[in-house]
């Protein structure tokens, strides 16, 4: 079954233009009269920001392949000069790419098209476009050239494709938010941007899924306690040392304790024969954080490890031997001992905005860094640990308000630079966690994180509906409770709001491309809109699904008490959440206590206050859920 990809590019473009119109009218309409925005044109569709995300160096080191997520293309540059040699078109929102083992094919994962592009590296010609799983985020080929492995972020799995025909051979269950793949010998390592589902109000747990590339089966899961999101993982050339970049949140205590270092630690998990059992080490310093570690490279001789900090505009260089010596000399845990990094960090190298993927020259002399949000590539001399060249990609010359808003969103502007918006809204989504946000005591007012796509028409914000506008949600309230420092002037806040309002809804994978519902979805729709129960009794309007979850986004924008409140909540009324892409955002309810959509009704609706559902059979409840997943 093919699922809809509702012209995502068009949606984004429409959203951007609409957002500009809103800003042009002044943000007074958003309820923040102090904000005004200078009218500045957005780039036309022909002038898209390149937004480089990942890099590859050709085997001979002469060409630099740049995955330009914003332009839906791969640009091939002369590594020395930065001149464009050719451009390879790929699918929408590409998120990862790699070479085949023989270097003859380029493989790109197109996250919004659910496809993989196969291109000839000599000619740049696209040879094939193959369907993969839900939201492909990286793709690699096994050493034998037999299979392609595709990490599917929404599918939470790795799709195995025949490397010749593209036929799906297997779908391997991975962790939640499967996103990055690295191959080392016969082993494939998959990392995940969201934590695995776990018990309510417990520390998160992610994993590195280890796949036997020959058998195409999962053979091990390296569990990462305390870790919410893991990004790139790199293996040394001899395969004996592995390094994964990751986020270690502290979501069980009030975020108001940011000044005590209680929000996030940015860490690495180091594993492999050189280390023994996996060990987590911090990247941060006691009074300075290096947020959102993303790309990792290990020098050919293993002497240095380089890590990009996407939120802190720098690359951290680590002396591997000193780090291993520290690990051997100290007893775990030291992930939260921020004095540790002084033992092994040798440099913090400033680069461009939102540094993401890296590529290292074969001799280890040069490290290339993709600065995602300023369309540049930083070239670092790994001996002097300085940027020696900056390659600028073609694109709009001006930084638009929307682009500025995106840069703010992805930079860490809290106290001591601990974190930013994108820490909890990974790649502008959510994080699958519940947070203790307010300074009202430990364990009070626990709230589940929500998706922030397509927010127009879903006001007010917060689970208690306390913030009528995005400007209020993202402005002073965030500064007071999250950042613990003043961050924005009016213009910066307006830019940030503009960016958030521009985020379109991603394609719904559960709705057929023609919009026709399956029989189960159609039956579920009838349950959703019913007005009488199975006993023939009228269902009061306030107790029908379709009353509160009405309108195009599935919310009437009002607050209700549906019987799901907890003794620890400060309010009895809860904002009606929108239903867009609800299948993605488990757990559910305001505090994330319902692990699945089913539990909303099988566990947390004993008195039919959250809709009349207790007359339904299990089949009918399943149908209702099938319908909800199409929203």
């Amino acid at each position: 079954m093919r699922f809809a990809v509702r012209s995502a590019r068009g949606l984004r473009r429409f959203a951007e233009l609409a957002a500009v119109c809103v800003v042009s009218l002044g943000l007074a309409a958003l309820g923040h009269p102090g904000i005004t925005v200078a009218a500045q044109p957005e780039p036309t569709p022909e002038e898209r920001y390149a937004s480089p995300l990942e890099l590859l160096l050709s085997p001979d080191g002469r060409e630099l392949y740049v995955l330009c997520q914003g332009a839906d293309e791969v640009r091939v540059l002369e590594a020395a000069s930065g001149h464009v040699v050719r451009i390879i078109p790929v699918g929408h929102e590409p998120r990862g790419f790699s070479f085949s083992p023989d270097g003859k094919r380029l493989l790109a994962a197109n996250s919004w098209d659910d496809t993989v592009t196969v291109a000839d590296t000599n000619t740049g010609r696209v040879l094939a476009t193959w369907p993969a799983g839900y939201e492909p985020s990286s793709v690699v080929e096994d050493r034998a050239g037999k299979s392609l492995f595709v990490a599917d972020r929404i599918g939470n799995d790795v799709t195995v494709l025949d490397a010749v025909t593209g036929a799906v051979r297997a779908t391997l269950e991975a962790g939640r938010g499967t996103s990055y793949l690295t191959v080392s010998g016969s082993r494939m390592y998959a990392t995940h941007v969201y934590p695995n589902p776990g018990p309510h109000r417990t520390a998160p747990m992610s994993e590195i899924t280890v796949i036997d590339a020959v058998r195409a089966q999962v053979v091990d899961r390296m569990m990462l306690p305390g870790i919410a999101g893991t990004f790139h993982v790199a293996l040394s050339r001899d395969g004996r040392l592995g390094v994964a970049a990751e986020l270690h949140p502290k979501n069980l205590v009030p975020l108001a304790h940011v000044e005590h270092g209680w929000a996030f630690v940015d860490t690495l998990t180091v594993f492999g024969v050189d280390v023994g059992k996996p060990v987590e080490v911090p990247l941060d310093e006691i009074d300075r954080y290096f947020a959102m570690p993303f790309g990792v490279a290990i020098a050919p001789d293993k002497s240095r490890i380089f890590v990009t900090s996407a939120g802190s505009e720098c690359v951290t260089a680590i002396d591997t031997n000193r780090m291993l010596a520290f690990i051997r000399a100290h007893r775990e845990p030291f992930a939260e001992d921020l004095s540790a990094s002084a033992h092994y960090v040798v440099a913090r190298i400033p680069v461009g905005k939102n540094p993401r993927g890296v590529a290292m020259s074969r001799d280890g002399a040069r490290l290339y860094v993709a600065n995602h949000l300023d369309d540049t590539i930083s070239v670092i001399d790994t001996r002097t640990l300085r940027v020696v060249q900056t390659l600028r990609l073609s694109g709009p010359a001006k930084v638009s308000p929307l682009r500025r808003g995106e840069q703010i969103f992805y930079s860490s502007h809290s106290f001591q630079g601990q974190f930013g918006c994108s820490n909890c809204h990974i790649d502008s989504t959510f994080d699958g966690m519940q947070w203790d946000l307010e300074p009202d005591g430990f364990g009070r007012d626990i709230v589940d994180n929500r998706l922030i796509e397509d927010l127009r028409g879903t006001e007010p914000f917060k689970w208690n509906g306390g913030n009528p506008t995005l400007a209020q949600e993202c402005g002073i309230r965030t500064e007071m409770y999250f950042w613990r420092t003043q961050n924005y002037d009016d213009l910066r806040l307006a830019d940030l709001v503009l960016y958030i309002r521009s985020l379109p809804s991603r394609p719904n994978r559960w709705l057929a491309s023609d919009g026709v519902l399956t029989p189960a979805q159609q039956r579920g729709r009838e349950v959703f809109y019913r007005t009488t129960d199975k006993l023939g009794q009228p269902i009061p309007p306030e107790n029908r699904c379709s009353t509160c979850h009405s309108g195009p986004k599935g919310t009437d924008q009002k607050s209700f008490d549906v019987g799901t409140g907890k003794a620890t909540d400060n309010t009895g009324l809860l904002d009606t959440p929108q239903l867009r892409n609800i299948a993605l955002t488990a757990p559910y309810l305001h505090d994330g206590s319902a692990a699945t959509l089913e539990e909303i009704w099988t566990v947390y609706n004993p008195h039919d206050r959250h809709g009349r559902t207790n007359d339904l059979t299990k089949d009918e409840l399943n149908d209702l859920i099938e319908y909800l997943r199409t929203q």
Partner: protein
Amino acid sequence: MKLARVLAVALIAAVGSAGGQAVHPVRIAHAAAPAERAPKMPRFRWENYTTANGLPDNHVFSVLVDGDRIWAGTNNGLAEYANGRWKVYTTADGLAHRAVLSLALDKKTGAVWAGTMGGLSRISAGRIDTYTQLNSGLSNDVVYGVSVEGDNVWVATAAGACRLNTRTGEWSLYNERNTPMIEIWAYGVSAAADKVYYAVWGSGLLEYTQKTHAWDMYSDPDGETEIVLLKDQGLIHEITSSVSYVDGIVWVSTYFGDSRYDGRYWHNFLTKDSGLPSNFTNFVKGVDRNRAWFCTDKGLAYYDGIHWAVYRPALDTHKPEMTVRDAAGHVTAIPVTTAPAHNYVLGIDFQGQDVWVATAEGLSHGIYQPY
């Protein structure tokens, strides 16, 4: 129907509570023919695993072979045997329930699915994900049977059949409202690319055709009786306990005799005219179109299409016993020194020419002995 169920349950209770001792000796007419003239049926040296050598519980409900790895579903956890050692998964590891009734392997991914008394669990490289009637679309937490076909996991529960599409996460439930099922106590399931068969306690054999999405039901042509009036005319009884679909052939067991169905003709197996040691069969597993293994309350039986062999501790002396029945009905005792752990047999799987057998008193490894 109700009477039949009560009788069957009583019989299970009687046998199951016998503490591992066979209390109903079965009369076998041993012929004087020497063992060397008997049909050459597979011979095994049996090695038995119990709590004494690592199994978490002697009551083994199910067994699954995955290459060199053996999985045993016991009354007290799921045990994995690899490299000569047992590893045990319990509810503390995320297993849905301690009693693991059924097991199935997803050959494409290597994941193991375990049907338990408290839900359905998937075990993949040490991680356990559990589906229950509260946290998922699973129809009921009592999962008697599970089978994997393509991206679908087919489940037999105490409240009907259901299917999980592992790609989309969609659950589809099948019960008295959308199938010919009268009773919804689904006991066993066997799924393939063309057909899916369910053994439903009280509703006979349910057949789902993948191409048409149509359900059909096979019932006992004699109606609700324990007497087989019309032999080879259909299913022996509507209380079915297990089904195995292999090479286009359906092997189906009941507590009153077993059957083979080729899509057109039925063939019934009863103790009175076959080598089956008991009509009370817990589990059947086909090898191919002609061969099958039957797990009964009075021993393990193998049928090669013509001859029968039975492996068990003797019902009277409890000494190791193997008997072979030829096409003419002559039964020959084969000298053996080992036997499965118990004659109350609940499951079987194959490892090349070896077999692994779940019994009420341990897990048995039948190591093939060439002639």
